[in-house]
């Protein structure tokens, strides 16, 4: 039993199939099989493209959330932040249209990224430098962003200037090489996210900060810097999502992005990322987003359950996922 009798291990390769890590993908497969058997039109190209395209916003934001959660934090403000960023972006573009024409879109996109990053920076600094629980901080900023968009829109909506609609439309409705543009953008975000988390020193530090902030600190990893950066990444992801979202509905309203934090966190958690931090799963998150979107899609297609109950189903899924975590262990 004592390990003094074991030979020093050198290059021993003893990897088994990591079933636990495959869980989200198996679940996704099951959901697709169930979907195909419940409804004939489910697997149609139109419906599939529709599902994947619609999931783009949540997927992009959830990639950011994977970093925040892996680093041991949580961001509840993403939905409201999304609405706020969208509002600021549309107002900027509308003001610039008379002088800049269609180029206002580029400025607007830049503004979305910068405002998103700044919102994330604010969340991050209050959490890390202010040393306040991320739950409380982002609960507060969630209220702030939501109130700001309601104030900016005067309780109504902020529509995008008519002259920009045609030029901006392709960002959401267009496609390149047969792939819808929002899906392409998502794929790029996923690829960058996976590279950052799995292949860079920053990813290692995120993992360390989430796994044990004390160990990270004693190893010379700046937990403050790592977590703040994670929040900024989250903000940038919200900005990217906003850029894709604006042409879809052409307006920001007080209900834009409502309850998205529920979808985002649910997707991240059922994707295999540990809610207490330390283990992040980018591709799992993508699977999680698709699972949620497919279930919502099936609810709409099948008429068995009212689509008004989508959030109830998603809430149930996150609770079941956490219970499964608990009892499988």
């Amino acid at each position, binding site marked *: *039993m004592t390990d003094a009798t074991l030979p*020093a291990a050198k290059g*021993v390769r003893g990897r088994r199939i990591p079933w636990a890590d495959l869980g989200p993908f198996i679940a996704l497969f099951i959901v697709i099989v169930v979907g195909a058997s419940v409804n004939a039109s489910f697997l149609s190209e139109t419906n599939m493209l529709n599902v994947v395209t619609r999931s783009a916003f949540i997927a992009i934001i959830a990639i950011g959330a994977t970093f925040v959660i892996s680093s041991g934090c949580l961001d509840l403000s993403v939905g409201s932040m999304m609405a706020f960023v969208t509002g600021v972006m549309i107002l900027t573009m509308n003001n610039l249209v008379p002088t800049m024409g269609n180029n206002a879109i580029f400025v607007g996109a830049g503004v979305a990224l910068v405002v998103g990053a700044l919102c994330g920076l604010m969340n991050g600094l209050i959490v890390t430098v202010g040393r306040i629980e991320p739950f409380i901080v982002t609960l507060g900023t969630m209220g702030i962003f939501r109130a700001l968009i309601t104030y900016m829109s005067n309780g109504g909506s902020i529509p995008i200037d008519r002259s920009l609609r045609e030029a901006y439309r392709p960002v959401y409705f267009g496609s390149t090489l047969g792939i819808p543009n929002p899906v392409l953008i998502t794929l790029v975000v996923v690829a960058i996210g996976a590279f950052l988390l*799995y292949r860079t020193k920053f990813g290692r530090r995120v993992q360390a900060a989430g*796994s044990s902030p004390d*160990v990270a600190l004693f190893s010379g990893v700046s937990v403050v810097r790592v977590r703040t950066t994670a929040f900024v990444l989250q903000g940038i992801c919200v900005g990217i999502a906003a850029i894709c979202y604006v042409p879809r509905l052409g307006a920001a309203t007080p209900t834009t992005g409502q309850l998205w934090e529920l979808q985002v966190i649910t997707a991240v958690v059922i994707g295999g990322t540990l809610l207490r931090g330390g283990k992040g799963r980018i591709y799992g998150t993508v699977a999680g987003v698709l699972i949620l979107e497919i279930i919502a899609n099936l609810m709409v297609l099948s008429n068995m359950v009212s689509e008004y109950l989508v959030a109830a189903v998603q809430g149930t899924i996150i609770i079941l996922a956490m219970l499964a975590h608990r009892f499988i262990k």
Partner: protein
Amino acid sequence: MTMSLALPNLASGLPDDATPALRAEGLGKAYGPITVLSDVALDIFAGEVHAIIGENGAGKSTLMKLLSGHVPLTWGRLEMAGQSVTFADAVTAEAAGVVLVHQEILLAPDLSVAGNLFLGRELTRGLMVDDREMNRRTAEILRTIGASCSPSDRVGDLPLAQRQLVQIARALLEPRTVVILDEPTAVLANEEVDALLDVIRGLRTRGAAVLYISHRLDEVEALADRITVLRDGQMVGTWCAKSLSQRDMAELMVGRKLDMLYPPKRPAPNGEPMLVVDNLSVGHGAQEASFAVWPGEVLGIGGMIGSGRTELFEGLLGLRSSHVGQITLDGHKISRRSVEYWRKAGLVYLTEDRKGKGLLLDETLGINLTLQALDVVHPGIALDRRNEATELNRAVDEYDIRVRSLHLTAGQMSGGNQQKLLLAKIMMTDPSVVIIDEPTRGIDIGNKSQIYEFIDRLVRAGKAVVVISSELPELVGLADRALVMRAGRVVAELKGDDITEQNVVFAATSTHGTNQENN
């Protein structure tokens, strides 16, 4: 298993016809195909302290858990007072009068002492909890075991030693015939240990059978009536305590004659000091400490737990807020302090809290090894996994880390291997000053002597090494020069033959021995 020592294997000192309070025959435990303990035969009598000693992994904890019903037996049987018994779980065992006092403190910090003692078995009068009666009974039991805290004290406010006593009080709330104590002194300072040993002697006097597990052989010698030695999951034998010296015990545990545990001392260094610290104060932990370390020497730091040793060095690293007059490293003035900055300057610190602050227990060896040296191992933008694997293989060789697979997580390794991995981790960037806080806490004697060899190797390679240790033999055995701290101050500097256990203890405890302050 051949005995290398010709010692009388006695169960003497007790009447032959006495019925043991607890008897174990052919006790064993296997997890799947792996046998962790086999063929243990024990008699524990009322009114004796029976010590169980053995290296880490020898099976001590497993034996304790079998005897106290925490895990079911695979083989063997138990008898209490001549009657065969089986314990389905710890609750059944406690009902039968066998209780295990855990090594870790398992108390609710926000509850009062009485609240903790009666947690889950509160006394009630009608619908209300009967605080008055619970406080009365708590006060009574605290008095019996000589604890100075009051029933209404909040447990989180108590010093560690009192919490340990509260934990013992909780175990003794009901009358017990067999009390099992698993390393109760592991977290205590010396004078607290003495008080606890008196409590245990009190238990013996009142007729309890006490089973005592400890790493500290001096305590075993001071306390035990009989000693059972375990090695590699098997019982080596039971001896009358009087017939064994500490050295005998150590050799029985290891199963071979101990070579020199400590490497020979090195010649005194000369030239310029590597690190000079002038007037460092760290919060309430350490005041106006000044010291220097030369390359090629081990500077030992002694003192009681709580004397500010760890605080001093965590402050030096910048992990706690601190004020300092001046620090120079290799002649260069140091202005900014953080772990990262020190690492680049050539100074590293190995924490005493291996599991809480040293290693990511859920992560693999490779991730842990390189965490402090990411920029060095991975110079480019992307991680260089091949280089990481090379470094891991090198470290496993160099520090003799023995694991079944390199894909294990740090938490799945034994304490000794964890400590070696931690040492390898801080040495990744080849520092010139190495500060090691409690180099061998909670690891077995074989790994201990290896760690001492590694330290010797570092010093002979010209590094300046600081060793903070609560184990006096270790401090005396390793240090070329020693500083002793008391109440946050450096109160003595000892050199050469003056580094003795007596001198260290005297400086660490006496209230007037401050004449050697500031060298």
